[in-house]
């Protein structure tokens, strides 16, 4: 099997979703208090990272 280059946009999207899922899980377990002040920057950062990785991958 040939080892190809990693798909960076997919990798970034996966990591961003993992991070969001982790935070939501911690909130469900009452480990953190997930209010708007914490969730809004996280959601923005995840979406921004995915868009940036996609855009940069398009530019080659």
């Amino acid at each position: 099997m040939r080892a190809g280059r990693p798909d960076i946009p997919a990798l970034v999207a996966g990591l961003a979703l993992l991070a969001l899922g982790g935070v939501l899980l911690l909130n469900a377990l009452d480990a953190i208090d997930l209010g708007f002040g914490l969730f809004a920057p996280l959601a923005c950062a995840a979406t921004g990272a995915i868009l940036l990785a996609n855009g940069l991958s398009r530019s080659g």
Partner: protein
Amino acid sequence: MRRDRSGGWIGGVCAGIARRYGIDPALVRLAFVVATAAGGFGIALYALAWLVMPAGEARPRRRLATGRGAIEVAFGTVLLLISALLALRATGIWFSDAIVWPLVLIAGGGVLIWRGSATAAPAPAEAPTAPLVRGEPEPRERPRLTRAAAAISRTGLGIALVIAAGVAFLQSTDALSAARDVILAVVAVVVVLGAIFAPWIVRLVRSLTEERAERIRSQERAEVAAHLHDSVLQTLALVQRRSTDPQEVAALARRQERELRAWLSERPAPGKAATLTPALEAAAAEVEERHGVPVEVVVVGERDLDPALEALVAAAREAMTNAAKFGAGSPVDVYAESNSGAVRVFVRDRGPGFDPAALPPDRHGVRESIVGRMERHGGRARISSDPDTGTEVELELPTRPDR
């Protein structure tokens, strides 16, 4: 990663980062401004990057994102900035809502206005090259209009952001009620003046637009004429001269057909050089092959070709052709130098010389293919000819900072 001082405003940090990752420098600058407005981090980060990044002209590893990629990069960067701002605000590293948010809006609006004005104003080297067919719409007109519309919408959004920033600042400092009377008075005056002068303004704008379109069409016709003169007309003249050799005539026709097809489909000609030296050497080799006269080329300095430099090479090629045709078989010397201010090319022969002012009006070689072509691309051509010393054509093209 290196600082790009030639394209930078202060130390070239933002331009260097943008060049390395193929993103718009305005976005990187916006990020630093926002980071400065939020908690003052931007200044510290910039100073650190200035210290760490060496200066130099590194080649970009990525090309600048365009189309959908550019939109995604822009939105991604803006979202990351908003995320950082919200995080800083939540952690208390924050000046004040009344200051930071208006500053962020002003910075974003300023970037959009700056980009809009940069896109709307064409560079002096941006000269049309597409062919025109009588009665059909200009092929380059649609992209140009689309670019202008995008620039106007960007500028409009930028102005709206800046106005929103002003209103938000006035609102947060309770100064809006005091400013309302003044704003109302200004709006009333603008509406009255607009109603009075609107017809003249509309007519002026239309007249300017028509004049600009006519200028573009005239430049396109001149470009087409110069190209046809340099390629098809010269090949036809050679075909007449070598009509006794059918194989050579066929080879000339094939080469001309390839070149013409590439030009019509706006793709690079086969074997086209990417930098100045090989392009001049290729032009010299072609003239040597066609006219059997030695052409010596010396180039000092190197530059990537852009449309203006391609025009310079085409003008130099035409000067070499003239020297080979009318230089009485004397060798042709070509010297080119490229420095930070300009690119200069000198083409010299030791032939009998001629009087440039006495050229008949129907001869396009010197007038359009050399002098006119250089002027259309922001450069100049100077011809000095003497029966004793021969003819020298000097071509000069000022360099833009981004060239």
